[in-house]
């Protein structure tokens, strides 16, 4: 048998590893699309774009599937209690990371690989992936802070607020959830149907 903390560490490694692959490939696709002559046009070659696109969607799907497992095991590892702002923010950043990755995966599946041929969509997808990996690394860095007292973010210029948390009233959170659910329903069911963009 092994403890919840050990299981959580393993799950978190799967999530972070997959997401790093996904975000690097997504950023590569976006860069190849926006700057076609980058690296002697090799980044924008059809074969390279196809490979990076498939790797990014595969990595993002795998990571997204494991996020709930990692979050639940982390919750058990913390004895289902939140005693400080750092731990609270871990849940908040997990939610943000899930949102960004879900949007990345849904967008790529709905619009197809042809989205990389549209500069604006490509830029949006690249920014989404960048924000998603930033949130994911924040979550894992908070884990490092909690367990080891240090994190790679200590030596980096970026460190999002994490020591103090803004705790929303649960009623406000529920209202926001309803707004989010309604917005999703409107976008997916009531709004104009996004067409799958076929590659040339």
């Amino acid at each position, binding site marked *: 048998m092994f403890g919840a903390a050990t299981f959580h560490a393993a799950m978190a490694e799967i999530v972070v590893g997959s997401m790093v692959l996904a975000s690097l490939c997504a950023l590569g696709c976006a860069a190849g699309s926006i700057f076609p002559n980058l690296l002697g046009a090799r980044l924008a070659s059809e074969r390279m774009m196809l490979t990076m696109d498939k790797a990014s969607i595969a990595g993002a799907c795998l990571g997204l599937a494991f996020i709930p497992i990692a*979050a639940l095991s982390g*919750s058990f590892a*913390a004895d*289902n*209690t*939140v*005693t*400080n*702002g750092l*731990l*609270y923010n871990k*849940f*908040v*950043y*997990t*939610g*943000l990371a*899930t*949102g*960004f990755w*879900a*949007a*990345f995966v*849904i*967008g790529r599946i*709905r*619009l197809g690989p042809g*989205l990389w041929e*549209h500069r*604006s*969509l490509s830029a*949006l997808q690249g920014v*989404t992936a960048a924000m998603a990996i930033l949130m994911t690394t924040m979550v894992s860095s908070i884990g490092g*802070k909690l367990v*080891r*007292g*240090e994190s790679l973010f200590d030596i980096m210029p970026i460190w999002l607020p994490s020591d103090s*948390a803004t*705790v*929303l*009233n*649960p009623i406000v*959170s*529920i209202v*926001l*959830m309803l*707004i*989010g*659910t309604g*917005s*999703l329903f409107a*976008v*997916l069911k009531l*709004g*104009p*149907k*996004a*067409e799958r*963009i076929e590659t040339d």
Partner: protein
Amino acid sequence: MRSRAAIITVIAILLAAGASMANPGGNGDADRDYTCGGSCHGDPALSTPSDGTVSVSVDNMAFTGTATAVHVTASGMSLSGNRLLGVFLLGSIDGNGDHPEDHGWSIVQDPNGGSRNYVEVVVPPSGSVTLTWVMLAPQTTGSVNLFVETHHGSNPNSNNWAYSGLTRGYTVDVQPVPENLPGFAFDWKPETRVTGDDNPTVIRTTNTTSVSVQWMLENEWIPHDAVVTGEGDEWLAQIPATIGDTRIQYQVTTSNGDFSITQPWLTVATQPAPFDGDIWDARLQGLALALLVTAFLLSLQARLSPWKGGPAEDMTSEVEAETAPPEPPGLEPEEPDEYWSRLVPSEDNPGWLWDPVEEDWVADPQNPPVGDE
């Protein structure tokens, strides 16, 4: 060349990771046995003796169940980047059952305000730190030993050594307490207060008929008298609230007419206010943010992507420019300047120009004809 650079980069990253050690952020204050019962600092393959000096100051005689202070001064040791030092107060060095309470002691207060035998402190730039444990001597008489162990790192630390230092045993001769000697109750431990809390501090005593308390800020020289109320074995001392990083120390004097005992200085243990949120607040907030972010980004994708019925961009001119057939030879549209330059003015017909190509009269825009022609 590029592959060589890539390999060197990967090796550099791996070497950079090697600079990180097992628990450079420490493990937090806790009740621990000697070398944590077998940590890196206790592993001969991973550890090395500390280069620092540790001195211990403790009375070599104590009465059973009475308070005594153990002062530990550590100095001159190498330190890691965060200057963290771990200090153990031990009753033995067997690797288990080493906690002083396993040997009859009761820790009233550790240097950080808790009641642990292992504490972590950040060493000031002077390189020297003094820590004080206030303990109640065992209830049984005899000789007992106290050991102090230190754990620390080093910066730089190319070999990743875990430094460990151990003092000799300091023997305390525990004598029977004189009858009716006033002191702290054996099971009393100072309360931990929340920042800003100025509720009276509860002090429980034994064989005591009166209590006086003096307090002062850390590093202050002149103590102030505190108002003390109560009777029997429970007393309430009015000590100001701690705010921010300030630390307040207080000293209790227990008296009963026959004896008056001045106890060691204690520190008002202060902790931050308890965190407001709970796990379900965090889960709901995380889920709400996930839904909002997803919805926002999907709507942006829908806005930027082509969709049926959307405002199509007018590309007519580009399409016509690319698809319109060329004019037949001789019928290509002429440039306006070329057209006007070929027209010839006529003195017979003022206001009119003669086009020799079309063989037709054209009205002169510079000198319009007057009247009908």
